[in-house]
């Protein structure tokens, strides 16, 4: 069963995809699988494939690992390593 997820992007993930925010229906079990689907199938995301290892993610506004489950998730964000402070 597919669920609807809000996807956000920041920094060069945003500038390279040109998609700061969108909604997607997905059946990906993990956030890593979701990213693979986006890189493989979504327009403008292919160019990020070579930098996949640099991409980080958050599920519902908490930093997550790529093997984290998307069960009950509402919002997923993809972005580069954090550089604040």
């Amino acid at each position, binding site marked *: 069963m597919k669920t609807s997820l809000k996807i956000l992007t920041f*920094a060069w993930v945003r500038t390279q995809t040109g998609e700061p925010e969108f909604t997607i229906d997905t059946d990906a079990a993990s956030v890593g699988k979701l990213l693979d689907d986006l890189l493989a199938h979504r327009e403008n995301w292919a160019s990020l494939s070579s930098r996949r290892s640099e991409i980080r993610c*958050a599920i519902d506004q908490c930093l997550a690992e790529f093997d984290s489950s998307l069960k009950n998730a509402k919002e997923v964000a993809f972005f580069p390593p*954090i550089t*604040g402070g």
Partner: protein
Amino acid sequence: MVDLGISVQRQDFDVLKEIKKLQGNRIDIGSLSSFIGIVRDVPLIIEHYPGMTENTLSNLRKYAIDRFKLLDARIIHRYGALEPGDQIVLVLATSNHRKPAIEAVDFMMDNLKTKAPFWKKEGESWVSQRIQDLNATKMWDQD
């Protein structure tokens, strides 16, 4: 829920005003430690993840107060376009004795650097994460 102990804002902050606010009329504060991060050499644009940023800083502040038995703490982080010499971040901690206040500021800065969703852009290039920052954060987990 708004946490008055943290602020994510475009506008500049007044360090003295923040210190006075934290001190109030208390007379149990023996130590006040602070850190100010400043834009160095080149202009910056700072982007963040609204909502997650506030939650992260709020949790970090509460955790630090608890871990270091602080009297109080405050975190302010700016976003948007900043010029060299501009203030970026302020971390304040108060405690009875000096070690907890100094350590808590160190701890909050280390964790903020790798956990609070901010990204810096210098000109057209996004700044890379420093490996030292990642390692510094990990050190605190071993204590």
